[in-house]
């Protein structure tokens, strides 16, 4: 019994430790200087010194948040549209459009977007938005097309209108699957956002690129580690929400 208790608590404990470590690092990077110092050569600075890590982390998260929220709205709306009787014929078209968004490398999107919208956050947002659509769309489509038939039948039989069925039954039931798509999309975006710094978007990519340019391994490592920690924590958090919603409905989660 006691052993099971420890096992159940261990992941939460690790998560908490990671959160504390992450906050400490971005607010007081100076504390960690001795750790990173051995990675630098010829007295180069061990901690990124061209901007606050905290600001960069928040800007990074903001970029990912805006792109993901936009991608979620568009992808879910599209999935709803093509699963209504009136929109079924657009299903193949929307599928291929979203697939194109995914096959286009983000770097290529950046290169094409810069002449149109200029340097900065905008081209990054466009790239992340396009890249994030597919997982959310595919999952929303799966969720909305694999609803238990007798539950949908019961909703119709009870006298719900099409809109009421969508809002009261279909979306809540597919919520865990849609959340899974959002989770994938967020993690992809967190990593991809670093590339945005090649076109002057203020993300954690700045730290990594600065490190690559000045051959400073400490910069590369700290930029990379912050992004990785963010990805792990957000992935974890969203998985927990997913499991909670699914378990409430008595579904087994994979």
């Amino acid at each position, binding site marked *: 019994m006691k052993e099971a208790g420890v096992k159940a608590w261990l992941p939460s404990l690790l998560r908490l430790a990671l959160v504390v470590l992450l906050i400490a690092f971005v607010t007081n990077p100076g504390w960690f200087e001795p750790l990173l110092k051995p990675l630098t050569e010829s007295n180069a600075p061990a901690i990124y010194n061209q901007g606050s890590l905290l600001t960069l982390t928040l800007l990074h998260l903001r970029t990912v948040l805006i792109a993901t929220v936009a991608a979620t709205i568009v992808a879910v709306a599209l999935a709803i549209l093509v699963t209504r009787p009136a929109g079924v014929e657009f299903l193949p078209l929307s599928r291929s459009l979203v697939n194109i968004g995914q096959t286009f490398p983000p770097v290529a999107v950046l290169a094409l977007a810069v002449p149109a919208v200029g340097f900065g956050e905008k081209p990054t947002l466009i790239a992340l938005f396009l890249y994030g659509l597919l997982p959310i769309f595919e999952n929303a489509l799966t969720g909305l097309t694999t609803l238990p038939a007798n539950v949908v039948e*019961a909703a119709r039989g009870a006298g719900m209108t099409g809109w009421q069925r969508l809002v009261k039954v279909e979306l809540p039931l597919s919520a865990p699957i849609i959340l899974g798509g959002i989770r994938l999309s967020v993690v992809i975006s967190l990593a991809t956002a670093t590339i945005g710094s090649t076109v002057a978007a203020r993300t954690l990519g700045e730290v990594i690129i600065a490190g690559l340019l000045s051959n400073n391994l400490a910069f590369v490592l700290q930029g990379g580690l912050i992004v990785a920690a963010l990805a792990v924590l957000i992935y974890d958090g969203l998985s927990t929400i997913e499991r909670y919603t699914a378990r409430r409905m008595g579904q087994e989660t994979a």
Partner: protein
Amino acid sequence: MIEIEGISKRYDATTVVDDVSMVIEPRTIAVIVGTSGSGKTTLLRMINRLVEPTAGVIRLDGADNRSLPGYELRRSIGYAIQGHGLFPHRTVAQNIATVPVLLGWDAARIKRRVDELMTLYQLDPQAFGPRYPHELSGGQQQRVGVARALAAEPNVLLMDEPFGALDPIIRNKAQEDLLAIQKRFGTTIILVTHDMEEAVHMGDKIAVMDAGKLVQYARPAEILAKPASAFVETLVGASEKPFRLLSLGRVRDAVETGAAEGEAIPADTSQRDALAELLWSGRPALPVTGADGKPLGRVTVDGLVKRAARPT
């Protein structure tokens, strides 16, 4: 009263329901029996317009069922299906409250009704109301499904194999519960099943469907005594007929004067169960007691055997 007049449903070249006409009297149970693909479910679903008929009219208490938008019509008709179709993301109380919420009842009235139905179905509102469907047993889920269908006090209840997923013991209980509730509320029930046993047990009238056509629509005794076609005969099951006929009657109608040895049988036992008891105990007669426990007389093997013979 439900009047079905010349109803047909065609999908392209195939006719699923072919020119069916029947009248279901108010406060009765009509059971539609047929093999799978006989069109029985489609016929049922045309009453609340989950399926729109190709031809014909269905009138509920004189009003054409197309005089309201489909979703409004469906709110006024109870609908219970096989595997209950409960909303897994909503609690038991929320599930039962589905139609009243759609109809915009006030919260106090909804709570009163939900509590009343749950009590009626032997589910403690405090204990079961906040639970989710997957936390209930199959029999409890089925009861919640029927309670949900009855929540807005509909005059008509449509049921599509509502007991199909239950094991035999729970099914018997569910059937008895439904009969009791039908008596209490006076609901007109149309029940679809492929189980002749269930049809004979539940139905005031039985409609037999085959290949989209209504083959026979009559009282159970008449279906058993005078099957309209070879198909009905097969469905009834030739070797089962006398026993099904007996299952229609209660012991109180077969009581003879006199006394007998052995454990008494309650008067509301079915004659079929009484015969089984007589045969199994190896006695020619058993005493019968009324609901108050007083002896009424006896029931005999000979008497029951006579009743099992083809009515003339």
